[in-house]
């Protein structure tokens, strides 16, 4: 772009042309794996596994099932890596596969059982809270997870990707293969349902404390 072009476009009320996409830092690893090397796949996992595990846990609501989903996701990725089109964002492709795996597992498992996660995540909080506060926090977390678990599968995936994984509406639409307007509708519905669930929960709790 010539110097001053940006200012002229802004003065004319025009949008700036989209910048060229940055090269995917994972592409060299992908090329090596596609050339027949196996070891770079471990590095590829190291770069992405935390996000995939978190995504699977948020969609499935179960730690062990999330680990199974992550394992199946990476096996599918390795077997079909030759179909990935270089130049596209690898992570979006990976997340799409992970969501499909989670949906498959969720269908096989049936209705989501609500698990009370162990207190491992609260160990840090426990030191500064009294027992009553800790119990209330734990109860609230479990019930919010229950609210998420009761959402239809498509709404849950859209809400997790948009509000918890931090993707834009357009990115979520690309990952899930639907139009952005569908994602807006799904996340609006999901947010309203979670809010309504939380509101009922507060009313049902003695003293409304949660």
């Amino acid at each position, binding site marked *: 772009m010539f110097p001053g072009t940006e200012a002229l476009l802004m003065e004319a009320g025009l949008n700036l042309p989209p910048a060229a996409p940055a090269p995917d830092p994972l592409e060299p690893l992908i090329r090596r794996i596609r050339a027949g090397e196996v070891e770079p796949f471990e590095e590829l996992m190291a770069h992405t596994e*935390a996000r995939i595990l978190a995504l699977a846990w948020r969609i499935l609501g179960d730690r062990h099932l999330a680990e199974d989903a992550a394992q199946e996701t990476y096996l599918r990725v390795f077997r079909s890596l030759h179909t990935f089109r270089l130049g596209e964002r690898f992570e979006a492709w990976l997340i799409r596969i992970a969501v499909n795996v989670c949906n498959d597992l969720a269908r096989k498992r049936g209705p989501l059982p609500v698990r009370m996660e162990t207190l491992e995540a609260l160990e840090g909080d426990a030191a500064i809270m009294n027992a009553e506060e800790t119990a209330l926090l734990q109860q609230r977390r479990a019930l919010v997870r229950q609210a998420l678990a009761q959402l239809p599968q498509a709404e849950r995936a859209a809400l997790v990707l948009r509000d918890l994984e931090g993707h834009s509406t357009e990115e979520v639409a690309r990952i899930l293969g639907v139009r952005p307007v569908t994602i807006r509708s799904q996340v609006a519905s999901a947010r309203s349902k979670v809010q309504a669930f939380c509101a009922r929960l507060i009313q049902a709790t003695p003293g409304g404390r949660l």
Partner: protein
Amino acid sequence: MTTTHVLDQLPLWIEGDLKSPEMAAVEAHLAECPRCQEAAAQLRTSQGWLREALAPPFDPAPQHPLRRRVMDRIRAETPTKPAPGLVRRSALLAACTASLLIGFNLWRQSHRIPSVLPLGPAPPEAVEQPTGPALHLPLATHGHPAPRAIRARPAPRPEAQAPPQDKPACIEFQTADPSIRIIWLAQSKPQPGTRPSLEDKS
């Protein structure tokens, strides 16, 4: 104050999913409507609880067990099929061999060298089978400069002994790898029955 409430738009407004004019309209309404303000506050609270409750329980440290399980499965699957690079090299070698054979046959036909002995009565003179020409393949290796193209130059010989058509055959193959070129040179001895020799002329 606008009389139309914005309750339907709040779930999108709360995360900035509305366009700028709609965002501004909702905010203008919220500034004056206690009912919508309360709904917005509840929505903000539930979104905060959602993020807090869905913080992943996994240790941020590397997931060695998961990685090990996946890599074990992948390594177990991989040896059953050859690496793509090996397949490409084998295919290249096969193509080169086939090209050499075709080239050699064409050259032999152009020089009318019978591939098998003729049937029937034995020829008056013993047919000398052409000995296979020595095959030199100057292959470039890593760390060494690629060989320069070799042009076939017939050795200077007396005109009577070396007719112009007896130049050595030269077949060059450029492989997919620009540093590798296969050059094949071949020259045959004239057969006694196909060409007049000096002794016959005299």
